[in-house]
């Protein structure tokens, strides 16, 4: 496959041509994609908060934010500034250490998971072999932060919310991992780059959603539950628990939970796009477009255009999924905790196991279509 542009290689070779040692050049490269990804993740919060407010308003026939910036796009920034200037309160009998550590432990794994999100053949911070498994294992740290926050707040609502959040995320992690396992089995690799590479070639027809429709649904439901989005937002069910584990938090500590939940939503949407919707590949493969235009695949301008299109495609797919998540929020009522756990353990878990078994059988019988 055509490797596309490799910014790291270009950057490092430019610096070594200028006379720097190879190690130093690589060291200079390392922070660049990380900073870029951090900025991108932060901007994605603003975009998704704005989308959430605007779409929610449209769903309820309101206008939504409109004064801060054109069409209210800066509303999230205003919210952030407000949160920064609020007083940071620790409740009287709360445990100050755990109270402060909780939000941080919730947010850090989410941002770390962006390590493995690819936007192009070489546009990923690091293509490590364990790839998607890193995301699964990092997302399993989050419940500890939630329990910490719930416990240290010295509040019954918080404790119940934290316990619910932890129960929910450890229950839905298993169907999630099994759905990912079916995709991994088809790819023969855990690397996100390989997963997208295996889907490219036939355009939209090659995407995993056609070969794994059940897996896609399971993954999407479980991802929504992991993000605590409606209809699974039990940990912060307003009518029952005030705000769950966030009840006692103010200022930027609350802001961290807020940031964490939106980044997690965007991250889950990106991962769904990578696993099931072909990642950065276009509905029509870029190679055939280049063939019709009569341009060689290695032409520099075509590679730049392809890389740009890849990033745009990934983001379009991810934000389409975010849009669906927001619509679902205003369509589906919240489930009860027993219904939630029933759905997770008695329905999603068996179905995902059968899906895994069926994928294994299909892989043996139809190796050309399911990755031999």
């Amino acid at each position: 496959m055509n490797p596309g542009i490799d910014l790291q290689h270009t950057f490092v070779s430019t610096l070594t041509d200028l006379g720097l040692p190879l190690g130093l050049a690589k060291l200079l490269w390392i922070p660049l994609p990380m900073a870029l990804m951090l900025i991108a993740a932060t901007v994605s919060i603003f975009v998704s908060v704005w989308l959430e407010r605007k779409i929610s308003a449209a769903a309820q026939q309101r206008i939504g934010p409109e004064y801060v910036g054109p069409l209210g796009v800066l509303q999230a920034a205003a919210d952030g500034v407000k949160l920064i200037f609020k007083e940071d309160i620790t409740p009287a009998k709360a445990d100050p250490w755990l109270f402060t550590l909780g939000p941080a432990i919730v947010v850090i794994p989410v941002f770390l998971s962006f390590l493995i999100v690819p936007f192009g053949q070489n546009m990923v911070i690091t293509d490590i072999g364990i790839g998607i498994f890193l995301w699964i294992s990092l997302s399993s740290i989050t419940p500890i932060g939630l329990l910490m926050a719930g416990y240290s707040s010295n509040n019954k609502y918080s404790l119940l919310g934290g316990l619910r959040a932890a129960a929910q995320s450890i229950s839905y992690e298993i169907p999630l991992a099994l759905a990912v396992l079916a995709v991994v089995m088809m790819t023969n690799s855990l690397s996100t780059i390989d997963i997208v590479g295996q889907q490219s070639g036939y355009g939209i027809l090659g995407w995993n959603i056609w070969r794994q429709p059940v897996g896609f649904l399971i993954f999407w439901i479980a991802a929504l539950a992991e993000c605590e989005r409606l209809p699974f937002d039990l940990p912060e069910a307003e009518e029952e628990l005030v705000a769950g584990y966030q009840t006692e938090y103010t200022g930027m500590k609350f802001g961290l939970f807020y940031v964490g939940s939106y980044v997690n939503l965007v991250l889950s949407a990106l991962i769904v796009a990578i696993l099931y919707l072909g990642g950065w590949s276009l509905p029509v493969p870029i190679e055939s477009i280049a063939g019709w235009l009569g341009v060689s695949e290695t032409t520099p301008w075509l590679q730049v255009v392809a890389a740009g299109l890849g990033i745009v495609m990934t983001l379009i797919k991810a934000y389409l999924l975010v849009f669906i998540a927001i619509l679902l929020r205003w369509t589906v009522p919240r489930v009860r905790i027993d219904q939630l756990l029933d759905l997770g353990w008695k329905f999603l878990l068996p179905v995902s196991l059968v899906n895994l078994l069926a994928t294994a059988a299909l892989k043996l019988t139809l190796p050309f279509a399911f990755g031999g």
Partner: protein
Amino acid sequence: MLAAALGVVLLSSIVYSAFLLGLVFLSIAGFYILLNAGFVAAAQVLVYVGAVNVLILFGIMLVNKQEDFRPLPHALLGKLATGAVCAGLFALLGTTVVSTPWAISSEVAIGDRAIEAIGMHFFSDFLLPFELASVLLLIALVGAIILARREFIPDLDAAAEEQVLTLPERPRELVAAGVNESDSE
């Protein structure tokens, strides 16, 4: 990591101990990464931090009884004996580590190819322990379900137990759904 491990043992607050245990597990994962075993590190985080530690915390938070321990007679003697046993164990293990001729492989660690190697070992020469572990888990699962089903436990016993364990303001039914489900994981 050593500080965290000492904290697990020495701190009197069981919740701090549990959170520090998570830190210990994370540090062990860090060691695996330094040993170029990324897959084992991720599995360590997933299993120990994500599942075992969360279950321990769950247990603590569902049964947190606010009770001060009565000072035991001869507590110092007990502590001294424990310390002596621990020091002896440490000395024993230390001499074993130093005196054993370790067969250190000079090969480069396989890194990302480790997943295939582990899989091959599981389904060839380590098949029996692997399957035995799954049987063990199945037994634990069945046991947890039997314990969670209330009709097998005598009523008298269960009532007495509930009185001890329940805080007055925390209804047991609400959280019981969560712990049953997570136990059967």
